[in-house]
């Protein structure tokens, strides 16, 4: 009974809408589809979305490892609170994050006001998009790396030390390579999330076509113009790329499990 219920529900809620998307895309015909997909404005939006998401995911990968390290290995006042706060981007509505970040980094904003005299503009530039995506993707790397770090065997570090490795050598040659799978997974998750992000970006981005217009926004704009064909085409391209991301994550995990005996 439960199975029947589940299947009905899933079909109604997820399968039908998504296949509707696929169907509509195919309605377009290949030529028209490609024309829209390769339209300069589309390409630019895709480039900005994927580029900013990539940069943000890289930043999150680096700081995420540091954060996870600090949370797992050190003790300091307020650690419990900080650990809980890492999940804030999961809990905070994207629109709220969006207006807050816009206010902070606008030319006369809390932080922006110090950067404008230095000639650094964050709001209304791709840089602002990157910062918004760093916010959104922060928990992903930290939360995938933390459990793996907690399981690191102290004996392995001691072994490296007995063999003459300095602390730095131990960290870079022994510990970090072991963390590569979860970092990669977290990176891919943050990247996938960043590509599709909308609410936290549109306030800080400025949304100028060819400069700071992200792909999801382009979809919304096309929808408002009732240009369903274009919206569908762009969405389809994004979906295909997201699917590839998921596939890569799974491949990394099964490869590392086979070789090293453990995955992320």
């Amino acid at each position: 009974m439960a199975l029947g219920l589940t299947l009905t529900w899933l079909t109604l809620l997820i399968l039908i809408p998504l296949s509707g998307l696929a169907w509509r895309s195919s309605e377009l015909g290949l030529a028209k589809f490609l024309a829209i997909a390769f339209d300069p404005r589309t390409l630019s939006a895709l480039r900005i979305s994927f580029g900013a998401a990539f940069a943000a995911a890289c930043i999150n990968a680096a700081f995420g490892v540091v954060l996870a390290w600090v949370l797992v290995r050190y003790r300091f006042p307020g650690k419990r609170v900080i650990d809980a706060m890492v999940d804030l981007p999961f809990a905070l509505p994207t629109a709220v994050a969006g207006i807050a970040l816009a206010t902070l980094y606008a030319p006369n904003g809390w932080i922006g006001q110090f950067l404008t005299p230095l000639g650094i503009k964050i709001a209304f530039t791709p840089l602002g998009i990157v910062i918004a995506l760093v916010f959104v993707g922060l928990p992903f790397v930290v939360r995938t790396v933390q459990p793996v770090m907690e399981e690191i065997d102290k004996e392995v570090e001691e072994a490296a030390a007995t063999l003459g490795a300095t602390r730095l050598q131990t960290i870079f040659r022994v510990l970090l390579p072991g963390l590569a799978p979860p970092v990669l997974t977290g990176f891919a998750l943050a990247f996938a999330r960043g590509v599709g992000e909308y609410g936290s970006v549109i306030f800080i981005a400025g949304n100028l076509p060819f400069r700071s217009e992200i792909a999801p926004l382009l979809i919304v704009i096309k929808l408002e113009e009732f240009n369903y064909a274009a919206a569908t085409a762009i969405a389809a391209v994004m979906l295909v790329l997201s699917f590839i991301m998921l596939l890569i994550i799974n491949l990394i995990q099964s490869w590392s499990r086979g070789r090293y005996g453990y995955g992320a």
Partner: protein
Amino acid sequence: MEVRVQNLRKEFDRFPALHDVSLDIRSGELIALLGPSGSGKTTLLRLIAGLESPTEGLIYFGDEDASKKTVQQRNIGFVFQHYALFRHMTVLDNVSFGLNVRDGARRPPKAEIRRRALELLDLVQLSGLEKRYPAQLSGGQRQRVALARAMAVEPNVLLLDEHFGALDAQVRKDLRKWLREIHDRTGHTTVFVTHDQDEAMELADRVVVMSQGAIEQVGTPDEVYDNPNSPFVFGFVGQSNCLDVRVNGGEIWFEDRPLGLKVEIEADGDAQLYFRPHDIELRDGCGGCIAGLLTTSRRVAGTRHIEVDIGKGHPPIELELSPSQAGSLDRSRIAFRPKRWKLFRAG
């Protein structure tokens, strides 16, 4: 390289793990730290390694004070109980690790490192497996990789922490023999920690028996087995029986009669008599014997193990009889006397 430990004391959060331990380890010997858990043997090993620092005391490698050196500087080889192999590196990379992390001047060229690592893998009989990853090896193979890795740095001293602990009994026996061979070939000063007295007796040149943070006795396996200097050592290193006795005028009295055992220098008073199950002779009802009823009898390999109930609330005495002794057993009443024994003062 000889290792000397002087008045070593170690406390963990007020808990005393080692009290005033001093020990001289000769260069090239294979020495065992033997004791039950909590005896401080692993702590002592880790202090020598530099993985812990002593609360008080000194450690010398040769003539140098090693106490102030970090673990990296001491140039030791440590094999952990669960091997602690680097999972993301091949066997070859694991073994070469110690040489690869050396800085500039002391580091051999790549080809040389590779040669040495392969040589060591050959020594531990793992040639051909250098491209495998630890996840693909059996327990015994991992143990040998760990050993090869530790030996690669030409350590001053090799330290092994219950390193056979995680293996099956049969594998363990094979590896014991093999470890002795490796030691004889390479000549490293080796200290290993174990709670298994068979292992210690079989492998070691000398045995250090430890209990509750202190050294009870140091000696060759023969010395420690035949001449234990305390009840603890007597009981730990082999099987033993214990009787409360009294010394009276140079004779040992058990309950109400003398046993026919003479002591020379002991003063009168209460004492405890320790003897091993196989160090007895059977008697035909004598005046000075220990006697009792045969309760159980079973065959174990080439000997017969029996239990004798000597009454009056004493725990049963365990005896081991050779085939000829066992042959003369035809009654349920057993009388015997220890051939070799040791007397310890009570308390």
